[in-house]
């Protein structure tokens, strides 16, 4: 029997209700007066508070005109008078737009207009009928998160001006519209009971039957019917307990530059303050000290108002950090500074130390964080993506305890639904149903409010919240604050489960690699800041002025660029240009601080002797590395001491080479025999009879993979990336390029249709290490360059540096959790070892590492096109050191070698008090930072245990024990340091 599809052509009863709901919304406005005589002046924002006018003088702006230009800010001005007929009524200023607007009337900030709100109540903020209107409007380019189709259809660089109006509204219609938004959402949502939805549709229709849509009579009767028949009905029951926390996520840069975030932030805060005026029960949470700092600087009037609302407890600063940084790539000291500068700001501005970190949008969280949180006064951690975006496994908890690499624990919450919701019943119900700790975790957290300049909570969300308790099928809800939710449900909760490990996000794995130059500069500047602070601190001890403000500004600029859509590379091209300009500026400023007078003395800032091969920049040097001329030295300078760095005297005749059939090159040194394939991969590497390269695997083998993750291009690497390998032609096979008595270089040149790639393999007369440098002119699209290492080792784990200790990751693919971690983040090194021997690869600015069963791959470059079609195009210089070793990563002191590889030796004759020098160098701890305290009263030294063992710091006198905020916690002379612990001590200046 043939199947006959039944097409219903007449209107369903539900559609009849939907249609009349649209009509009902048209009845909100009762009277309207167009504001005419407006002018507009187009501008482009060029800094946080400066604009250049792009299209001449102000011109008239009339309804139907096109307005806005690409990347434009428009200043709209006009005068109006409130009509006599509006007297005694609430008067609104209304405009439908896809742009983001801050509105001043008679000089006072009255509110904001954007795609999610089109009307501002004027009465509380004006004292006369004559209105002088000033609108600062930024043309919104955010590609997602609006739910209003009408606004979406208006979106674009050139918009049609729909007119500016003074309006009065029918309050009873508006109220009934809110009832219908609430109840229609339930009626249409499959998260709710089917019988109740059927009941709702029927009764909502009957209520609308009472309204005359021409005269608007019957609205009050309809509202009374809804109250009596729907709200008062308790035959249907729901369950659940959901905490509602108002929040607006703000990307400081993404599809906009950071200069635009200043205005986005100000408008978001303004709108929330205006809502608080009207809804005293409304509480709102806002993150990032940087956003408060910019508000204070550029909108002082608004900031003063904000302080009042904070003091009243309505507006709640959350997230103790300076910005919401990426939490994979920044090193431990950077994360600590995020808290230090964040918390100190909140203390100065509001007298508060925040006890939570609030990072809903970051792409996974390093295992080093719990300790840093705890020691920065933060007991609670909020994130989100691993519970909502994981592509393979469902993260098993929402409210839990997170245990860090050193054993520190914090309370953690990763809510079960997205951090941007609009407080609809279906979203709240979905949250409850997805919540995995119903029996143990107390309430579940639902954040509501638009993000990124969508400007947070709306009046509609608050009106809905006032009605939630009237709907019997909804979970119980509580409007609360961020800290209040965390304290109520997590604090001292004995039922919470513990997650011991990193909070890996099974998505966005490409962000460890995208925009390679940002990562390289970030790494270099993290170490350069350390060097500058350390030297300045030691100089200050001897009476020199400490450049506190200069160093703080450099730090803050670096921290700002660690924002989670800047450093990870997920942004438009102008954001990249800004970041690189910032990096160059930081570099120049630090270089000035670091310039030393001594021309022939070098200061070793490592807390151990620098005995390894060290590259010394020198214009007369015969080696060219990373674009610099220089020579190789083994300085032998003791830790935290100064000395000479002479050119290494080598071994004449140490190198023997022979060409083999098939283009291979056999190399013999006093320490090993190495056979290189024509493409520079290692065919064999033997030392004292031991082979390091597994037969049949690539080792130092360069691959170009087709990399087509889709819409989340800059963010993601998919598990199938190895399905297609792109052609990489060996243009010039491996050959010896240069050699002297210390080192030799062998080069290979590759080409594709668009790119050229030179690999330099650098070998040394007296070292087992091989350094590889890749000099790339990169013009690919959708390609991922990786170099693979298949060592002849029996190991099932990869040991990865985290910057504050190491994490062991399984190389096996037995479980879906292991399979999902095919690309992870590491810092300076990874190591594969069997008992007694291993190989480490130490890098100078790479983070992505692929776990491929028996092989490991270091991710070098990507070439994504969204959001930036030029991403990673151009020149790159990438270096790593391959280091076969006896023992494991700890006994081979890989950490020390990795620090030495990343911290350049710089000139300077600097004296560290001998007793202190000995205490630090003998402790075996990494001197992570030495600085002057923020209050200038003492030296602050931070030392970290990197090898997972217990150590002791025996100080030459009593020191203050500090937390990471530099608060005094106690005193001691001898400090027992636990595995992976970071300790901070205060040393008197004298």
């Amino acid at each position: 029997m043939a199947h006959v599809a039944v097409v219903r052509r007449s209107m369903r009863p539900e559609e009849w209700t939907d249609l009349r709901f649209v009509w009902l919304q048209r009845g909100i406005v009762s009277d309207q007066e167009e504001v005419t005589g407006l002018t507009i002046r187009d501008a482009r924002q060029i800094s946080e508070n400066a604009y250049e006018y792009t299209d001449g003088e102000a011109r008239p702006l009339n309804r139907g005109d096109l307005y806005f230009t690409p990347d434009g800010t428009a200043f709209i001005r006009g005068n109006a008078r409130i009509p006599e007929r509006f007297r005694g009524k609430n008067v609104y200023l209304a405009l439908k737009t896809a742009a983001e607007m801050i509105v001043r009337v008679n000089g006072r900030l009255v509110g904001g207009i954007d795609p999610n709100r089109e009307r501002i109540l004027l009465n509380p903020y004006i004292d006369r009928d004559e209105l002088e209107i000033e609108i600062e409007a930024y043309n919104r380019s955010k590609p997602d998160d609006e739910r209003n189709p009408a606004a979406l259809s208006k979106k674009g660089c050139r918009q049609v001006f729909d007119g500016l109006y003074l309006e009065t509204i029918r309050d009873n219609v508006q109220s009934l519209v809110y009832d219908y938004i609430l109840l229609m959402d339930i009626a249409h949502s499959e998260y709710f009971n089917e019988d109740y939805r059927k009941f709702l549709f029927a009764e909502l229709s009957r209520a609308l039957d009472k309204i005359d849509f021409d005269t608007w009579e019957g609205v009050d009767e309809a509202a009374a019917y809804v109250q009596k028949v729907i709200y008062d009905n308790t035959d249907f029951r729901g369950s659940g307990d959901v905490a509602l926390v108002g929040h607006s996520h703000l990307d400081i840069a993404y599809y906009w530059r950071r200069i635009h975030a200043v205005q986005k932030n100000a408008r978001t805060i303004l709108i929330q303050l205006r809502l608080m005026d009207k809804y005293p029960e409304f509480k709102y949470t806002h993150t990032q000290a940087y956003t408060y700092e910019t508000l204070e600087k550029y909108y002082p009037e608004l900031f003063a108002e904000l302080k009042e609302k904070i003091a009243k407890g309505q507006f709640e600063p959350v997230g103790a950090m300076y910005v919401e940084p990426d939490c994979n790539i920044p090193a431990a000291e950077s994360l600590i500074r995020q808290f230090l500068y964040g918390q100190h700001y909140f203390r100065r501005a509001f007298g508060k130390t925040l006890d939570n970190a609030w990072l809903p949008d970051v792409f996974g969280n390093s295992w080093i964080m719990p300790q840093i949180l705890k020691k920065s006064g933060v007991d609670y951690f909020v994130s989100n993506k691993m519970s909502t975006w994981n592509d393979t496994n469902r993260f098993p908890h929402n409210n839990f305890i997170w245990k860090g690499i050193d054993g520190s624990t914090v309370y953690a919450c990763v809510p079960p639904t997205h951090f941007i919701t609009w407080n609809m019943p279906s979203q709240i119900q979905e949250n409850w149903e997805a919540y995995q700790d119903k029996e143990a975790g107390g309430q579940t957290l639902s954040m509501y409010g638009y993000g990124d300049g969508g400007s947070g909570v709306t009046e509609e969300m608050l009106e809905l919240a006032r009605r939630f308790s009237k709907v019997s099928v909804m979970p119980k809800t509580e409007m609360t604050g961020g800290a209040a939710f965390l304290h109520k449900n997590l604090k001292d909760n004995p039922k919470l489960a513990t997650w011991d490990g990193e909070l890996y996000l099974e998505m966005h794995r490409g962000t460890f690699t995208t925009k390679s130059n940002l990562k390289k500069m970030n790494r270099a500047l993290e170490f350069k800041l350390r060097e500058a602070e350390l030297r300045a601190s030691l100089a200050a001890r001897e009476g020199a002025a400490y450049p506190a403000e200069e160093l703080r500004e450099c730090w803050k600029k670096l921290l700002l660029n660690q924002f989670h859509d800047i450093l990870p590379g997920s942004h438009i091209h102008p954001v990249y240009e800004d970041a690189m300009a910032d990096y160059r500026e930081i570099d120049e400023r630090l270089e000035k601080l670091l310039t030393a007078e001594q021309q022939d003395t070098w200061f070793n800032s490592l807390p151990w002797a620098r005995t390894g091969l060290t590259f010394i920049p020198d214009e007369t040097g015969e080696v060219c590395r990373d674009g610099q001329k220089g020579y190789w030295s083994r300085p032998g300078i003791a830790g935290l001491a100064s000395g000479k760095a002479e050119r290494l005297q080598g071994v004449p005749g140490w190198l023997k080479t022979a060409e083999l059939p098939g283009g291979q090159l056999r190399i013999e040194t006093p320490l090993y025999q190495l056979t290189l394939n024509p493409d520079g991969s290692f065919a064999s590497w033997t030392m004292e009879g031991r082979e390091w390269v597994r037969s049949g695997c690539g080792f130092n083998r360069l691959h170009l993979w087709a990399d087509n993750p889709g819409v989340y291009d800059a963010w993601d690497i998919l598990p199938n990336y190895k399905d297609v390998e792109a052609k990489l032609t060996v243009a010039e096979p491996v050959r010896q390029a240069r050699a002297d008595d210390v080192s030799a270089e062998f080069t290979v040149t590759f080409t594709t249709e668009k790119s050229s790639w030179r690999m330099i393999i650098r070998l040394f007369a007296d070292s087992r290490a091989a350094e590889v440098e890749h000099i790339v002119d990169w013009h690919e699209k959708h390609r991922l360059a990786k170099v693979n290492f298949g060592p002849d080792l029996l190991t099932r784990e990869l040991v990865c540096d985290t910057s504050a200790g190491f994490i062991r990751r399984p190389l096996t693919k037995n479980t879906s959790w292991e399979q999902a971690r095919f690309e992870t983040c590491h810092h300076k090194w990874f190591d594969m070892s069997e008992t007694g021997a291993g190989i480490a690869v130490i890098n100078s600015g790479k983070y992505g590492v692929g776990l491929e069963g028996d092989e490991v791959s270091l991710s070098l470059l990507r070439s994504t096109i969204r959001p930036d079609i030029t991403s990673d195009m151009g020149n790159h210089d990438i270096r790593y050191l391959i280091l076969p070793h006896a023992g494991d990563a700890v006994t081979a002191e890989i950490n020390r070698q990795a620090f030495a590889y990343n911290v350049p030796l710089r000139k300077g004759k600097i004296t560290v008090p001998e007793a202190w020098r000995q205490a630090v160098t003998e402790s075996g701890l990494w001197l992570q930072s030495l600085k002057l305290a923020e209050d200038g009263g003492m030296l602050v030294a931070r030392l970290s245990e990197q090898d997972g063992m217990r150590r002791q710091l025996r100080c030459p006198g009593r020191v203050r024990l500090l937390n990471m905020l530099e608060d005094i916690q106690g005193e001691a002379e001898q400090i027992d340091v636990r595995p992976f612990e970071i300790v901070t001590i205060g040393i008197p200046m004298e």
Partner: protein
Amino acid sequence: MIRDYIEKTLAPRIQGDGGWVEYVSLEGDKLTLVFRGECSKCEILDRCENWIAAKIQEDLGQTVQVTGIRKKPFFWDK
């Protein structure tokens, strides 16, 4: 002249909204441009093309008709 104006003056502004414009050719008064990024799927790109023509007229005194070629990335090419 027009190429330089597009690359140095207009393109940075369009990039500010996640878009991308490239000069292709000028034949007579027919100016051909390639649009990528967000521009490639913009529903009101014609308004932007008209703006480009108006800006060229205003700043360079030259009348052009803009023809835009959209180059959508594969993931939007449905």
